[in-house]
Structure formats: C-alpha cells, structure tokens
C-alpha cells in the first residue's frame, strides 16, 4: 500500500466540499466511509459582523500537515484533506474543512474529529471578532474546552 499524502491548504477563498470529496474518492472502490467536517462562522445572534482570521504562513501549513499525518497513521486513513481559510469571514461562511476517508465508518469519524481537535489547539490561527455595532474588536480567547477535547486522544 502506498503512503497516503494529505491535501493541506491555507487560503483566502472559500472551498467546494463536493469537489474536495470527489478528488479523494474518484475512481476508487476501496473507500467505504467519508466523513466531512465544515466549521462555519456563527453570527452570535446578530452581534457579530465578521471574523478576521490571522495565521502564521508556513507554520500553519506545516502544523496542519503534521496533524494530518498523525491522523492517517493512527486511524489507517485512505485519504485526508484539511483546508483552513484566512482573512475576513462573515456569519454563515465556511472557516475550515476536514475530510477523512477510510474503509470503515468509525475510523473516518475519529480521523476527522482528531484532526479538528488538534487543529483547534495547535494550528497557528487566531480569530478576531468584528462587532456588528462597531464597538472595539476583540481577539477570541482560547477555550479550556478545546484543550480538554484534545486530551481525549492522549
């Protein structure tokens, strides 16, 4: 079996979920399960006008690749894609996409879940909130819950 190379991208543009899944599964008959996770910007009941996503160019891709390779190894995945957007993102828009492919369903669920948990705590991205009422913009605080979510894989 040849090693699986994850598809990793950090980009300003939105992604096309169907095209990304097709790229992983086209012409293959050994994949039985595909799990996708899309993370979207929430409007916080109208109080948020946008998120500004900052990242560490180079390190962001490197860290996402490292996490993806851990997941491929740990869950014997047959395909993995992780895409993270940067720049200004409005409520309802996509922020992040993870797709995991496996012969069996639990590995695909676990692979995508693992990548998201580690991406949240280890990939160098930061969110700044733009308030709808124009009040001073704040950086989003890191959540203890995200550290705890990562710990479930240790």
């Amino acid at each position, binding site marked *: 079996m040849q090693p699986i190379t994850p598809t990793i991208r950090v980009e300003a543009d939105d992604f096309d979920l169907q095209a990304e899944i097709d790229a992983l599964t086209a012409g293959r008959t050994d994949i039985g399960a595909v799990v996708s996770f899309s*993370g979207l910007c929430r409007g916080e009941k109208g109080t948020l006008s946008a998120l500004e*996503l*900052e*990242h*560490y160019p*180079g*390190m962001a891709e*490197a*860290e996402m690749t490292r996490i993806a390779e851990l997941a491929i190894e740990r869950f014997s995945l047959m395909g993995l894609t992780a895409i*993270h957007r940067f720049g200004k993102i409005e409520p309802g828009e996509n*922020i*992040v996409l993870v797709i995991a492919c496996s012969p069996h369903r639990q590995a695909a669920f676990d692979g995508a879940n693992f990548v*998201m948990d580690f*991406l*949240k*705590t*280890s*990939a*160098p*991205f*930061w*969110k*700044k909130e733009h308030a709808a009422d124009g009040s001073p913009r704040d*950086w*989003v*605080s*890191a959540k203890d819950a*995200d550290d705890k979510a990562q710990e479930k894989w240790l």
Partner: protein
Amino acid sequence: MTKLVYFAWVRERIGKPDEDLDLPASVVTVGDLLTHLATLGEEYENALQYPDVIRVAINQEHVEHDEPIAGAREIGLFPPMTGG
C-alpha cells in the same frame, strides 16, 4: 541576528509584525527571551506581561519555555491558538 515574528494581540501590542534582533549571550532559553524582550520598552512589557500565556515556535515548530533558542533562525511569539 535572530528573526522574531509576532501574531494576533502580541503583534498588535508590540506594534510590528516582525523584526531582527541581536540577542545577548545571557538569553539561553525561550523563557530568558521573554524576560529580555519585556525590558525593551513599554509596548513589549505590555505584550508580554503574562509570559505563561505566550506560545512560542522556533523555526515554525511549537516549543516549551524551557527550550534553548540556540540555532533558531526564526522565533514566533503568539497567544494561544483559536483557529478551526
């Protein structure tokens, strides 16, 4: 010279995205670096007043505060990540 890069509110408080610095020989670990930077002015002091929360990467890899900085070409300083 060592390249320092700053992100999110660390960048905003220090007031620049990156800079090249000559570090004194007494700066051995990441923790020493944070202590040293805080002496460079009010903006640095403000950015680094709670050094425990500052995350650091050497050559684009996460490191702990007790990591030696010898051999570092690029050191990144930033708050805990909030992506995803």
